[in-house]
Every structure is written in C-alpha cells, then in structure tokens.
C-alpha cells in the first residue's frame, strides 16, 4: 500500500512527563492503517525545520481516527516536535515499516527501554485478551517511566534500581514466557537477545534515518550476512536473525 505524505494539525497535545510530549493527530484513513510496530516520519512544520530531516516516531496509540505519538526530547528534531501546540502543523510520511508478528501463545513478555515504550504500549493494547502479558519497562529515572507492569530505573527513583535486563531472567522463569517483544536502546536489546535465546523474540530496532522509505540505505543493520533497512525491512526483526556482534 502506498505511503502518504501530509501536513496535518496537532489536534491534542500533553506532557506526560517533563521532556516527553504526546501529540494527537486526526486522520481516519491513516489511523485505520496503523498496526503495532509501524512508525511515521514526523517533523514540525516550522521554518527553522524546513531543511532538516524528518524523525522516525512509532505509533503510540490509535483511537477513533486519531493517532498518538509520544516523543522524547533528544536533539533538534525531537525538541521541535515536543514544542508543538494544538493547531500547529506536523509534516508526516507514513505509515512506515512492518509490524510485530502475532503468535498464538499464552505468556508474552514485553521489554522496553526509554523511547521503546510507545510501540510496545500500542502492541500491548492489541494483543488478544486471552494472553497473559507482562510489560517490563526501564528508564534512566522516574521521569522516563510510563504505565506498565514492572518498572525499573537506573537511578532507583522508581521501581527497582538497575537495568531492565537484570529482571528479565526471573520474570521469564516465573512466568513461563513463550514470546518476547522488545524495543529500546541497542545495548539493552543486545543483552536481552542473549538472555532469551531459545524463546521466540521479535525486536523493533532504532536506527538513524534519512529517507525513511527505503531509498538511502542509511538505516541498515546487519541481519544474517547482509544489511537490511530498518525503515523498510523492519523496524521489527526476528532477534535470531540479527548479527548482534556487528550492530
């Protein structure tokens, strides 16, 4: 299906934590096409952003023809997005990327770190009610924490102190996890991939992007013996296929 490119107004915006912003955008056709794992290329429709790149942002929620994105302030581009108010314009390209594959299993673990939260949160809302889902989320401190089942922070300001991967082995053991979905910073994903080897594991990768639509090969990651594009071949990959050493 073809990718859309539009400029739309922000219909709602709030600040769930300092340094984060949730932007709501209404577009029934686009919203209907979003599934968990997909992302959009977004940028603020502002003069000082005219010559700057779009930034990949996951679909965070979809509700009645509206899509939400949760953006963390990191650099130039995300700062501009976070400054948007209702009524301001957003330029977008999407929906982009593949989706988390859904398997018919019972016990599912979601592991997110930092801005890996939004796509897994969306995924959680779409998993069949019959499955038992545990969402483990970690961040640097309490202000990087959003609703989930188990929390940990590096500075101990919320949940248990440490890395999200510290908790994974016991969670897996205690809950007979059959399937893992993950998204977050690469070192976390790398560590996680080692830990859950043997269990089906789908990971959504982050990569710096230029085009977002598969033409520039800038977002490539080592998968098997070749480089695959996160924007077009991903962002979701089977963790077993990724060459974690080269990443």
């Amino acid at each position, binding site marked *: 299906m*073809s*990718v*859309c*490119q539009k400029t739309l107004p922000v219909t709602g915006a709030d600040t769930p934590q300092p340094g984060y912003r949730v932007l709501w955008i209404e577009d029934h056709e686009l919203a209907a096409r979003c599934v968990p794992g997909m992302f959009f290329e977004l*940028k603020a429709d502002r003069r000082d*952003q*005219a*010559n*700057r*790149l*779009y930034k990949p942002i996951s679909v965070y929620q979809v509700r009645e023809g509206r899509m939400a994105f949760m953006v963390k302030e990191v650099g*130039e*581009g995300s700062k501009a997005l976070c400054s948007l108010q209702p009524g301001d314009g957003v330029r977008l*390209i999407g929906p982009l990327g593949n989706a988390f594959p859904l398997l018919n299993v019972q016990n599912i673990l979601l592991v997110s770190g930092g801005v890996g939260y939004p796509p897994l949160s969306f995924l959680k809302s779409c998993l069949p009610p019959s499955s038992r889902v545990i969402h483990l989320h970690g961040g640097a401190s309490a202000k990087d924490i959003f609703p989930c089942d188990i929390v940990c922070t590096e500075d101990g300001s919320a949940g248990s102190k440490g890395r999200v991967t510290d908790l994974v082995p016991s969670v897996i053991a205690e809950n007979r996890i059959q399937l893992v979905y993950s998204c977050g910073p690469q070192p976390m994903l790398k560590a996680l991939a080692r830990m859950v080897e043997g269990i089906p594991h789908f990971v959504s990768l982050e*990569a*710096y*992007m*230029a*085009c977002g*639509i*598969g*033409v*520039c*090969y*800038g*977002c*490539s*990651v*080592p998968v098997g*013996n*070749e*480089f695959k594009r996160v924007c077009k071949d991903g962002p979701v990959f089977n963790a077993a296929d990724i060459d974690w050493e*080269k*990443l």
Partner: protein
Amino acid sequence: MSRSKSKLGKLDFDPPVTVASGTFGTEYFDFFDQRWLGAYVSKTVTFEPKAGNPVPRLYETEAGLLNAIGLQNPGLKGFIGEELPRLRDLLQIPLIVSFSGSTPTEFCQMLECLEKQPGIAGYEVNVSCPNVEKEGLPFGIDPDVVFNLTRELSKLTDKELTVKLSPNVSSIEQVAQAAEAGGATSLALINTLWGMAVDWRTGKSRIGRKVCGYSGMGVKPVALALTYKAAQAVKLPILAMGGIHTWRDALEFFYAGASVVAVGTAMFSNSQAVVELVQGLNGYLEERNLRLKDIIGKVS
C-alpha cells in the same frame, strides 16, 4: 516550448532537474509525478554486490548530513536482473545509470555489459565516492587516471557519459579538463565533501566509519564555487548538485554555470523539493521573460 528546457550533452532535459545518485528511489513517485524530473539517476551500482559500511551510517549536523552508506547495492548482476527491468517498466523519463568499478578494467567491463541492456539513456561514472576504501577514490582525485579511464569508457558508448567529480581535490579544474580531454560528454559535481562528527558526551564518532561524506545545505557554497570553477575550465555542460533545496538555490547554480541541477539531501527534508524547484524556476523565468539558457553561466 518550455522556458526552462536544457541539455546535458546528448540528453535533452525538460525540466532541467534530476536527482543525486543514492538519494532517490522510485518510492518518491508515491509523492509526485516522475515527469517533474528531466531524468532519473540510479543509485551507484558496483561490479560485485556490496554490503556497505558498518553502522551507524547517518548523522544530521547543524547544517547538513553525514553519510557513510558505502555503496550498498546488489552488484551489476543484481541490478541488471532485477532493478533495471523494474526501472525500465516504470520510468517514462530517461534513465542515467551511475556505476563504479574498483579498477579501470572493471569500469570498462561494467560499461560493456550495461551497453547491451535496453532502456539506458546515459551513464554517470562515479569516480568520487568518499565512502569506499578502494573503489572510486583513487580515480577521482588524479587527473591522469580520470583522463585514461574516461578515454577508455568513451570508446565503448555513444550515450551520454557524465563523469561525477569529487570536491576533495586540489584542483577541480585539472580533473574537469582531464575528463573533457578523455571524451566525457558532461560533468556531474559535487559528490560529498569529507565530513565527520563526534558525540562530545562520549567521544564516539557519530558514524561507524568515522570519516564520511558531507552533503546538504552547508556544502552549497563549496558546490557553487566548484561548479563555477569547472564551468570556467571546460566547455562541457555541468550537472550540478550540493545543497540545493529551493529554486533560489538552483538559480545560483545556473548562474554559476550549471546546465542541469540535481536534488539530493533536500529530498529527505522535503519530498516535494523537486516539484517546488521546477515551479519556482519556471515562475522566475516567466516573470522576467527569460529562458534558462539566458542565465546559464551568466554570473557577474
């Protein structure tokens, strides 16, 4: 007749706008009609397939883009087997194939092979990619090598033969003259400048390969200077690029001596860049009752 019609050697261009190799794909035709382009330039193809460079490969600086793609491509066989037929079916505009070899012989073999394929209007010989260790680079900076290579290649084809030059040279004039003497029918410039960025927090290079290629807005003054210098040094028409975002940028290049311009990095920030460029250019020419050829090289 259109005011903005132009020529690049043997190829007519209307509009006088194309795309920078490696920054474009037919995916963009989801966003605008291909006839806004005067021709289509493919991503550079190499003889063998290339996996490309280690990651990360991209970083956006204050004023441009760093990249170290490393010519990831399926190789000549893959290109001819899959990409070329697809492009042939899809394109209603001339196709210029960009290619690069690791030796002069390989360049020639590739051209011979491509000559047998239908649907190719011309070639862009990439002797200037800064992101591959052996390929391209030694060629693009040495006038003698460029002369010899161009001479061999020009014997093998009657189609448009553009040589794409590196800006990372002591004398663009000498390299341009070498390509002209060797039989190139036009020049393309600039490829990316040397670039680098470091994460000051950690001391880590933003790009896996450390030194990489720099393009976009911040290179425009350099690209303009080199376009002007090359245009003064040779009679060949020039396909200019480097930081062109708007029709005003494009006008600067036409005045400096470009016959055709290409949009590269700008596509990534504005997928309508080509359309807006062509519209703006036509508006400018109409308002002043000028033809494009009245302004090419007319900087004063």
